[in-house]
């Protein structure tokens, strides 16, 4: 750098680039960080688990070490009848979401209440824990917070799971992994737009609806409908099963791929699925050679298809 102009130039470059980074990285990060989490954000991260993409505990995105969302109407400790409650069960060694690990992500007030009333700092991944989302009114303001029900009510993960039958368990955490791994978000956004999507796709999210969630999988290129509130528009599990197995069974013009491979080898009754036979029968139906399409096998309880359908039905 023999020339004086390059000394000045390189300093100016540092100044320009540094200022740009300050405005586009530091200022937005500080601003976004000051936003408190809503109860939606708490529900989302508690049902999805720590990470929805690559992570130590699940490097191949197979849905390992994810929480289970249950709907219970019996107290897991006493067995007494309670109001129907949505609880998030973290069995032993399932990593807690970011809002539990780093409560300041939840924002000042929700973090303080979650720690004082919700006792989330007593939760331990070695033991597992059950969480619920609650709200409290303080000074006329509604503050959502996370309650560690294992500490406050003595709900143990195994006992809580036992109070929910198969239809009351949603494998939302594993389903989010399937949603990310299978690239659903390349075509379906999870972000209704603020300007024109209200009527058709429902309300757009608010600023605090994502604290603690990773990745948000908003998607950028919509080739199918937005799915943010799809569970409210269509809550039929039967429709979802048919649609994922072959979308053209329920929507003849759909360009969605068939996700039949997520069913695995065996269906819910333990019968080996004959994919070639099914496809041949479907082709005959599509060509008008038979009147009825072949029966869609029900996904097994531990299949990837079931988790993905749970995730989609949970998008309310």
């Amino acid at each position: 750098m023999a020339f004086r102009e390059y000394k000045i130039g390189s300093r100016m470059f540092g100044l320009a680039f540094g200022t740009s980074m300050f405005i586009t990285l530091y200022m937005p990060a500080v601003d976004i960080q000051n936003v408190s989490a809503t109860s939606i954000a708490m529900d989302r991260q508690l049902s999805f688990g720590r990470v929805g993409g690559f992570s130590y505990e699940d490097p191949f995105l197979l849905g390992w070490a994810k929480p289970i969302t249950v709907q219970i109407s019996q107290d897991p400790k006493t067995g007494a009848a309670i109001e129907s409650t949505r609880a998030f069960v973290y069995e032993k060694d399932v990593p807690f979401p970011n809002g539990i690990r780093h409560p300041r992500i939840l924002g000042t007030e929700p973090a303080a209440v979650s720690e004082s009333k919700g006792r989330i700092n007593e939760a331990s991944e070695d033991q597992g824990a059950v969480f619920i989302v609650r709200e409290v009114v303080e000074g006329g303001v509604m503050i959502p917070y996370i309650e560690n029900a294992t500490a406050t009510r003595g709900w143990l993960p195994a006992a809580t799971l036992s109070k929910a039958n198969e239809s009351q368990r949603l494998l939302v955490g594993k389903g989010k992994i399937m949603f990310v791994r299978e690239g659903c978000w390349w075509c379906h956004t999870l972000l209704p737009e603020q300007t024109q999507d209200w009527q058709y796709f429902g309300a757009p999210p608010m600023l605090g609806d994502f604290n603690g969630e990773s990745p948000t999988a908003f998607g950028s290129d919509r080739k199918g409908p937005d799915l943010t509130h799809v569970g409210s528009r269509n809550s039929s599990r039967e429709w979802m099963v048919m649609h994922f197995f072959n979308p053209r069974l329920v929507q003849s013009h759909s360009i969605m791929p068939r996700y039949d491979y997520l069913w695995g080898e065996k269906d819910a009754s333990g019968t080996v699925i004959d994919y070639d036979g099914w496809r041949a029968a479907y082709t005959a139906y599509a060509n008008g050679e038979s009147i009825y399409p072949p029966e869609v096998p029900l996904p097994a309880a531990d299949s990837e298809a079931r988790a993905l359908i749970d995730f989609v039905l949970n998008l309310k």
Partner: protein
Amino acid sequence: MFKYLFAKAEDIPAGSAAIYFGYSSIIWFVIGTGLGSFNAAKLAFPDFVMGSEILSFGHMRQVHVLAVILGWISMAFAMAMMYITPALGNTKLWSEKLGVWNCFLWNVGLSIGLFLLWMGVTSGREYSDLPWPIDLVVVLGLLVPLCINVLMTIKTRRTQGIYTTNWFFGAATFMVIIVFTVGNSPEFFQLTGLTEAYLTWWFAHNVLGLWITPVAAAISYYVVPKVTGNPLYSHRIGHLHFWSVVVFYSTPAAHHLMSAPLPEWLKSFASVEGVLILVPAIAFVSNLLLTMTGKWRMFVENIEIKFTITGVLMAIPLNMQGGFQQTRAINWYVHGTGWIVAHAHLALLGFSTFLEAAAVYYGLQTLLRRKLYSLGLANFHFWMLLIGFTAYWVSMTIAGLIQGAGKIYEVPYIDVVIAEHPYMIARWVGGTMVFLGNCVWLYNMYMTARVGTVIPAGRLPHELAYER
């Protein structure tokens, strides 16, 4: 290539690294566009190749994107840097051995990363899809060695000043390291929610704005004066281009999330800065087109100039779209539609690819000291690329406008899918033409290395007549 990895530095012929990078980039281009064509077929015909998780659209879409960005475009950049930077400094590449290793690591690292991505190992964030261990490989094995080599070559130059191209090369190789590291940090540091979403698009914007666009432009600052023999029209306008890229192009990242609930000041700021992208764009295009004064015959007659100037001309619609489509007035209509897909391909397959293709054509002839095997095949490649791209761009733009109309009038989504279908087929045809053109290019460059006419010492490739 492998024999030079452990050879003594003085035994490695000058230009080896650039040649390996050049051929690697063409091969990755064939792979990337082949994947693109396959994906487009799946969008047009959803039951084309079914029942396989690995061959499903959701597993291959991101592999296509990253194969093209990190394989084709970035390796063509590395190739251009490794022969243009020393040429402009009247010196040799600082370390040919580091360059050969860089190329080796680039191919290996990218292959592993894309294999994992293809298997579904993803971070779930667009453009920064690679899991963070692979991000570290990209930074330490690919970008840092390249940056060291380029900056040290500029430092050890034997000319007084630094030419425009080398300002961009030096700055961009440095900035891309920062951009890649910061942009992928949310995954490593567990940043969440909107912070993560914003950083994802901060990366996606800046990898284009501070890496692909300026380096592609820098290449044409070399190729046009070199091949036409005209000096660059204006050094000062080059300054304006460089500084406005650093100041304006690095700031509008938030305009990719105009419909997300980000702070309003951030979106407004990004939108205003986004329009200011027109400053470097106009400076660049006018500078290059004025450099062509008196040599416009070469736009028709010379294949390198034909590619370069086509790319420069595509910067006009690219930046008119890019500057204005992100304002609130327009963005609400086109956001998340095929319009944006068309725009992204205008940037990467239109503008940037044509500039890099010229650099690879010209650089491989110069370094191999062999004249291009066949002008006919090169022209065939040019027209396949141009017509294929145009078919793609026009069809996706129309599809995007249909989607936009469907979106604002809240038409049932399936009707939009039905209306788009013919354009999906047209897009597949266009993409397939690009892929076939690239296969011909690979053959042409292979034959150039094997049987191209030897260029005598002291002559430039474009001074020789074609034999085919």
